[in-house]
């Protein structure tokens, strides 16, 4: 049995890198971590694995060869006028780069899953900037930790222990930290907080505005704002103002509810205001393990973090128009390639309807819901377990993923599959 140390978990945006993976006969037999999601990932990733490329014939997915599947995907992309290339948060930066190159080559639009998670956060950053820090700064210094509209106990299970409230930092012990949770429901995270503030759904912006008013010593005449008594808001404002190093982690509770990017504007401007009083940082709790990497790669290669359109031969970015949900629900695209994501499970009904009504190709290690509906499915190696590559943690620290087992025979990494598609696309285009 082989024990591999310091393995990165290709799970959530925390990208914990201290997992021990036990391998016997090219199989993971045990994983040492205290995260249920990570354990499930390492032990189950190989269950119900599809190892055959599939093509839909007479309404049913039938086995085919890799060559035939690549040919089909290439033709779908070349024949389409405006293909959407979507996904990218559960794979390596190397694959993401190939995706950008492919989108540029076929003159399509490429989007990553940011579009339905922290897209509004990026819009907020583009409005006001982002006073932030690496997670180790929180660990070393933070004495006030606020989780707003996010629930790490369920989604980033080791976040508190490794990076924030429960971590032991150079200048700060767990007992010297205070934790505040602001949410619409009393989440598992809220149960362990020093202070839980229950905000009414869709009223986070109002609460942030009230906090800013308090910091600027303005009177609030109402008894409560956003369902929160004014005394409690005052308590929070005082905690914020008087801490030595505060951090505001926020999640989809802000990006997905009424206000969207305006909620993020509110949060960022609140943190800017707090920096007049003390040191304060803000950070989105990114979901998939390399969604941050997708934003980084897209940005350094095209100038824009997601929703990049190449239909005019150069990168264009128009959220609300080149974003996947808008492209799909308005029926702009006439084909889709999905890599490392499952839009059928994650996008609203009408977007999925259009997605499934046009040629649809999927590259994924598993039969996802999207693969189940696709015209072509190419199975690939599981990045972060069967294939290395680069991924970025939610705070922008890039790390190198480990390959701990070999993929099933004949199964290629998505980077290579995309490269084969790209080559075939260029041949087909050249032949015209």
């Amino acid at each position, binding site marked *: 049995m082989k024990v591999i140390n310091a393995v990165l978990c290709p799970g959530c945006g925390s990208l914990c890198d201290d997992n021990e993976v036990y391998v016997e006969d090219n199989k993971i037999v045990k994983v040492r971590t205290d995260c249920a999601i990570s354990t499930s990932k390492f032990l189950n990733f190989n269950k119900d694995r599809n190892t055959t490329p599939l093509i839909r014939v007479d309404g049913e997915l039938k086995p085919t060869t890799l060559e035939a599947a690549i040919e089909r995907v290439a033709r779908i992309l070349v024949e389409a006028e405006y293909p959407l290339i979507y996904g990218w948060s559960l794979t390596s930066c190397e694959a993401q780069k190939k995706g950008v190159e492919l989108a540029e080559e076929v003159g399509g639009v490429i989007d990553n899953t940011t579009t339905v998670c922290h897209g509004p956060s990026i819009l907020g950053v583009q409005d006001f900037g982002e006073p932030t820090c690496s997670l180790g700064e929180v660990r070393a210094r933070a004495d006030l930790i606020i989780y707003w509209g996010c629930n790490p106990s369920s989604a980033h299970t080791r976040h508190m222990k490794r990076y924030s409230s429960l971590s032991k930092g150079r200048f700060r012990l767990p007992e010297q930290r205070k934790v505040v949770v602001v949410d619409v429901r009393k989440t598992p995270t809220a149960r362990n907080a020093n202070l839980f503030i229950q905000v009414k759904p869709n009223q986070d912006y109002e609460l942030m505005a009230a906090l800013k008013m308090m910091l600027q010593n303005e009177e609030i005449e109402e008894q409560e704002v956003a369902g929160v008594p004014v005394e409690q808001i005052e308590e929070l404002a005082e905690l914020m103002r008087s801490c030595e190093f505060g951090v505001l982690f926020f999640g989809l509770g802000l990006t997905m509810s009424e206000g969207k990017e305006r909620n993020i504007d509110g949060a960022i401007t609140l943190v800017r205001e707090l920096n007049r009083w003390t040191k304060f940082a803000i950070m989105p709790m990114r979901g998939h393990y390399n969604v941050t990497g997708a934003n980084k790669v897209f940005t*350094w*290669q095209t100038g824009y973090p997601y929703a990049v359109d190449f239909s005019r031969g150069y990168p264009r970015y128009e959220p609300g128009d080149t974003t996947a949900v808008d492209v799909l629900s308005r029926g702009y695209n006439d084909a889709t390639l999905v890599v490392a994501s499952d839009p059928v499970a994650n996008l609203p009904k009408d977007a999925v309807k259009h997605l499934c009504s046009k040629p649809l190709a999927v590259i994924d290690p598993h039969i996802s819901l999207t693969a189940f509906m696709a015209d072509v499915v190419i199975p690939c190696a599981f990045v972060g377990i069967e294939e290395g590559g680069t991924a970025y943690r939610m705070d922008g620290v890039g790390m190198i993923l480990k390959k701990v087992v070999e993929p099933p025979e004949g199964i290629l990494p998505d980077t290579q599959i995309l490269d084969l598609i790209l080559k075939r696309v260029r041949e087909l285009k050249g032949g015209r």
Partner: protein
Amino acid sequence: MEYLLKNGYVVDPANKIDCERKDIAVKDGKIVESVDESKAKVIDVKDMLVMPGGVDLHSHIAGSKVNIGRLFRPEDHYKDYEVKKGVRRSGVGHSVPSIFTTGYRYATLGYTTVFEPATPPLKTVHTHDELNDIPILDKACFPLFGNNWFVMEYIRDGKLEECAAYIAWLMRSVKGYAIKVVDPGGVEAWKWGGTVQDFDQEVPRFGITPREIVRGLVKVNKMLGLPHPIHVHANQLGVPGNYKTTLRTLDAVKDLAAGDRPIIHLTHVQFNAYGGVDYLSLSSGADAVADYVNKNPHVTIDIGQVIFGDTTTMTADGPFEYKLFTLLRGKWANADVEVETGAGVVPITYSRSNYVHAVMWAIGLELALLIEDPWRVFITTDHPNGGPFTEYPRVFSWLMSKEARAKVLKKLPRLARARTNLKDIDREYTFYDLAISTRAATAKILGLSNKGHLGVGADADIAVYNINPKEVNPSKDYKTVRQAFAKAYLTMKDGEIVAKEGEIVSAPVGRTYWVNTKAPQDIEDAVIPEVKRLFEDYYTIRYENYYIPESYLACSAPIQPLEPAG
């Protein structure tokens, strides 16, 4: 492939060649004595200016803070884009261009080597990711050390050998090139929301002063025989009156110099050469700084010229960017990095009618003109802090023509003209001066013996400009100069033509240099386990995952350290 560039006027200061008609022969990527004219591709560059490819030692082109600038400024890109064409990938500008465009635009200017001067070690995977993607150019990155916990504590405790061993280990781990120091101690203070106001003020909780950090790192640099001196962004950047801090920083290490070899490179000095006591009384301190540099061979500088227009400031100096934000109240990004450093990004528009900006503009040029030895003052805009690198040709024309400067001066606020020295300076750069300051001297101070010259054996990185140096009078024809330098007639990289009259014709992968340095084995053996132990307490990633293997670099070019100087 063999080439013969015929009939050009060669300016190659490292070989003391000043506008001589000379053919340049190229074979297998190198400059050679001669080639067989019947086999070689002969390119007639009759009467054109032939120089070594440009070498930029300080330009923020890759990594975390650059990408923050790109991400949060879509408005920077909308109007400036490049369509995919042939080997040229598409992309966008302007002050923070996308990565392919960065490489193409430098090549178009005739530059072939560009160094990223600030990488947080923890985020150097990111820096290499971007460097790997830059086409054409040779490059490297400088890890930041001036606020590093290990460094501050080793120096405070007088453990210089241990400090050297730590830095050697880190340099190898992240594949870095030189020791970069930004606002020594000040960024650590900023992580608590504070600043270090004085060169001799203690860093909170670390019991060490900026002076001690800088002195310690100069000594370590020597012990490790790194090819480049320590590369310093001094304290108090952007603060009126800071020229005094600058002089104290330079003078603090004077006694550590041996011979004429520079031991400290002070970067983008324009931002650190301010007189006055506040922004209302801001004046040029360039004359005092230039005077010091003229008298003291242990110093080199680059200017960090300001260009009027819109750009994006970005630096590891987080506290400076916060100050700038409180003045401008626009967008502000801050990105502190555990144990090591920080970063800030703020967009700015430098305006001619703004008194402060006008003074800044004059200071950069004054430094370049008042420092007599072009081997010790280099032309930069601290891209993109002073302005985008694509504006270099404009800076060249200002340096080569008093008339060109006067034209701008005339439009500045009267008080700005009065409180700067530029109007009284007559000096004009020659092509020879320019070639020193942008190629020969920068290659030399970086320790790149194959770059910055056209002698036999040098890398065949060549820039040909369509301008006749014998006929053109830059003093009068400054527009011609600017246009010629904006679009090289031909740029060759490693003996391959990469750009021709503004078109990219090939896009090879450039090298990434790093220094394979080592401290004495017994000291490393003692230090590394200690670092490993503390690593778990300090960082949020595992020690094992900090290491970047050589195979991660698209084209790794390790450099051996120099023999440590006496």
